[in-house]
């Protein structure tokens, strides 16, 4: 079955061990307000306007039937609400400033695109990572794709928010070498507030993972206003300290690199004013990690 992806990112170095290709699937059942990949919120293929490439020529406007595109002071404005995602404007854009975000792709096509980087995976002990969005929302595509790579001897990983029922994971785990999941907040109410979903299933699934024998990493994004506090971090670390089979626990700093994505997609950015958190800032949590004997890698 085909999947809808935003991109296949080659040479991904933060999504598992070694050099990897990360397949970002479109569509997510959470809506984390700080998300670094807002283009994966929606499961639908949508239009993106890249400011850096736009020369303000207005050619796109001439073919837009809904008036979603306007030019204001030489700068094109995209009104997402009016956009019908017909993409006619895109073919009129000479500079590549208007682009489709998302494409349909089959597992075989995915394999074919990535296959060229197998030598790099082999040398660096890397592989592929299926990420999102929430990949498990496209379970069939994910399963078939993982099968193909696994059969080719490629290391496979999945990045999931662990919000889907465990039974679904059980069906694909045999094709996965590594599971990576976020543990964002222990407080369910806050979790709902910032992500739009409960963390109950997440915590339940972590415990299932712990028992499954499958290699897994947990990562906590440290986000200003959300969990950038000793209290929130301590709650998470205390929970993690009880996990004996976890391979790696990481604190990931919030960064502001996704700001242009929000702008290009015309999505409100709730963290526009927030600065990137440095690795050094994260060191303030070292004492908590030491207290609970959790090694941050």
């Amino acid at each position, binding site marked *: 079955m085909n999947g809808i992806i935003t991109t296949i990112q080659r040479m991904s170095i933060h999504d598992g061990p070694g050099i990897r290709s990360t397949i970002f699937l479109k569509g997510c059942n959470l809506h984390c307000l700080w998300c670094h990949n807002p283009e994966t919120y929606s499961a639908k293929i949508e239009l993106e306007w890249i400011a850096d490439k736009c020369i303000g*020529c207005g050619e796109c406007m001439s073919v837009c039937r809904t008036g979603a595109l306007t030019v204001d002071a030489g700068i094109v404005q995209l009104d997402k609400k009016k956009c019908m995602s017909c993409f006619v404007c895109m073919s009129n854009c000479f*500079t590549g400033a208007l682009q489709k975000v998302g494409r349909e792709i089959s597992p075989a096509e995915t394999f074919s695109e990535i296959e060229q980087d197998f030598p790099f995976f082999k*040398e660096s002990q890397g592989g592929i990572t299926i990420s999102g969005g929430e990949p498990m929302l496209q379970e069939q595509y994910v399963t078939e794709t993982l099968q193909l790579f696994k059969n080719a001897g490629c290391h496979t990983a999945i990045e999931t928010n662990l919000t889907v029922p465990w039974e679904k994971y059980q069906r694909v785990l045999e094709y996965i070498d590594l599971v990576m999941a976020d543990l964002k907040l222990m407080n369910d109410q806050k979790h709902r507030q910032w992500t739009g979903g409960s963390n109950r299933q997440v915590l339940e699934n972590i415990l299932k993972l712990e028992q499954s024998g499958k290699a897994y990493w947990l990562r906590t994004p440290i986000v200003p206003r959300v969990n950038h506090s000793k209290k929130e971090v301590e709650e998470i670390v205390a929970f993690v300290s009880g996990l004996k089979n976890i391979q790696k626990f990481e604190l990931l700093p919030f960064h502001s690199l996704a700001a242009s994505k929000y702008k290009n997609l015309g999505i409100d950015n709730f963290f526009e004013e927030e600065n990137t958190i440095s690795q050094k800032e994260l060191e303030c949590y070292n004492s908590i990690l030491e207290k609970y004997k959790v090694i941050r890698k």
Partner: protein
Amino acid sequence: MSTSQYFRFQRRIEQLRKKKLEQTHEKIEKEGSLDEDDYGRIVPPVDGWETKANHKDGSFYGIDGWTDNFCDLMANHLVYVDPNDAFAGRWMYFLSRMRSNKWNPDYPYEHLQENIDKYNIICGIGDDAHFAPDYSMGLELGFGGLLDKIDHYRKINNSEEQKKFYDAHERAVKSIQKWIKRHISVIRDMIEEESDFELKRNLYEMAVVNENIVSAPPRTLREACQWIVWFHLASRTYNRDGAGGQIDALLQPFYERDMKNGRIDRDEALYYLSCFLINDPVYWQLGGPDKDGNEQASDISFLILKAADKINTSLNITIRVHKGMNEDLFQKALYYLIKNKNGWPRFSGDKALVEGFMKNGFDAATARQRIAVGCNWMSLPGMEYTLNDLVKINMAKVFEVAYCQMIADKNGNSTSDLWRRFSKHLEVAVHTAAEGIRHHLKYQKYNEPELILNLLSHGPLEKGLDVSDGGAKYYNMAIDGAGLAVVADSLAALEQRIEREKKISWEQIQYYIKTDFKGADGERMRLLLKNSERYGAGRSLGDKWAGEIKAVFVKLVRKESEQSNRQLFIPGFFSWANTVEFGVTVGATPNGRKSQTPISHGANPNPGFVKDAASLALASAIARIQPGYGNTAPMQWELDPGLAKQEHASMIGAIIKTHFKMGGTLINVNIMDKQKVLEAHDDPEKYPELVVRVTGFTAYFSMLTPEFRQLVVDRILEN
């Protein structure tokens, strides 16, 4: 070694670094910018030595002209001694560039000129050096041994021309010896005047070292380094020769003997090696297989890297990556590359180089000895004559000729017709380049004999023939193609936008090329073409065309080989620093390149060729277009500082190793902070120590011309 001794060496090295920067600054001040290697050369005195002409055109040619001038220069060359240095000597004069004309007009090549101009060929006629001497021979014989060798063979080869040949080489060696003796005399005077006891002792040792090697071969590490320095300085002065050798293997026996005898310790060795490296950014190889395939890296290989780290100036050290490689040396090399971000070391890939060279009929043992000793090139030290990096065909110009001819013929346009015409013109261009090489080989001895490099080659003295004239053991002549990405992307853009998508017409393209994409419509058209499927993106139209170009270029170059004349022609893709001047001759091209702007660099895709993962795409693309006969198509890698962190060293290493496993031959790496390079571009004096790997060579960024700095900046920003 006491701690105080260690710090004394440290202080001396710091003084040498400081002086080196002052000398570079003086060079820029007095001589202006230069888009070349640093060479370690220092500014000659005002009203210094001048050449003597022996031809009515005001230049000097032939064995007499060169010997007279070289010997006179040696007799008058300033003495250079720094009490902080372990070695005496620096070079100042580009003898080969002091001529008013570089080719003897008595041997004209007008019959080639039309096509040389038409296809913008750098023909190499009258160019020199660019093959490697065998320093092991020099270290074994010493200058006295070389004189004995000359004496021995002059009795065997005794024609009039050969008598002159041996006389000339004898004079050359003796002039170098006299140059050394003048240094010894000055050092002796300096000993008397030096008040610092340690520096006085250093000068005393320097004098003894030099006295020991004026005639006899070197016996210690310091003597071996000083011997190489003298030969190299003489060779640089003669014709800019910068080829080195397998430096760790060359110095290993001296180092180990000294260590065993307690003559030196590691700190002292480190001091010598630091002084040795700061003398001149010679192309040295570290690690790699010996002729039997065994790794040559040893303790001194690590020490040389450490010395390089200590001075951290412009350096041209290459690490040979191979199956039996010393992994620790590779990791150390990565560590220094990332730590210093100064463009060194670079890496060469043994597998493709050896397998490729063997396709010319050489055995594995010989192929393994062909090592990285030049800008983009490999050489068998002392065994071959090559014209490496000297003969280049501007393929973008060849494309322009074909394109203009097709448009002018008005017989209908198509990429298949354009390709047919391009192939035909390329055949003429390659043949012209080969004919130029043949002309050079026939007459170079009457123009510029290789008086110095002959001494450390196997054959010239034995046969009484110049290395360019049959003296060498092998003739493996290099022809490089330049502008690969411009041609591939142009063909891809035409096929995609006109023939496949039918978005534009040939007439429209022609209009915009003629008008250099002027105006808003022109810019839109330019961007449309530029955003076509480019070479390097992977399985793109550009990649397809690059593959076709490679195949035809390789076939045409190989076709020129003549086994009966012992002349092999070996293809490569390289542009050196000629991208700017090549670009000036070419109008706007269908890949959206504007008129007279630089052509693409070497084998690299055009900047911005892929949206992300440029490193992997680059490594894959360049591995695919390797010509495959032992010469290189280097990967010029502008490594993102975000990736260039020690924690990512294993991934950088993996990319290097994978590129070589896929068929890559040479990787030149730059790690440049964008902000820093922009600031240095605005005010070069702000970062006088900033070194950039321009191409196969490194240079001080501040020494480059503004145009070339801009090119480097664009390359870094767009990647």
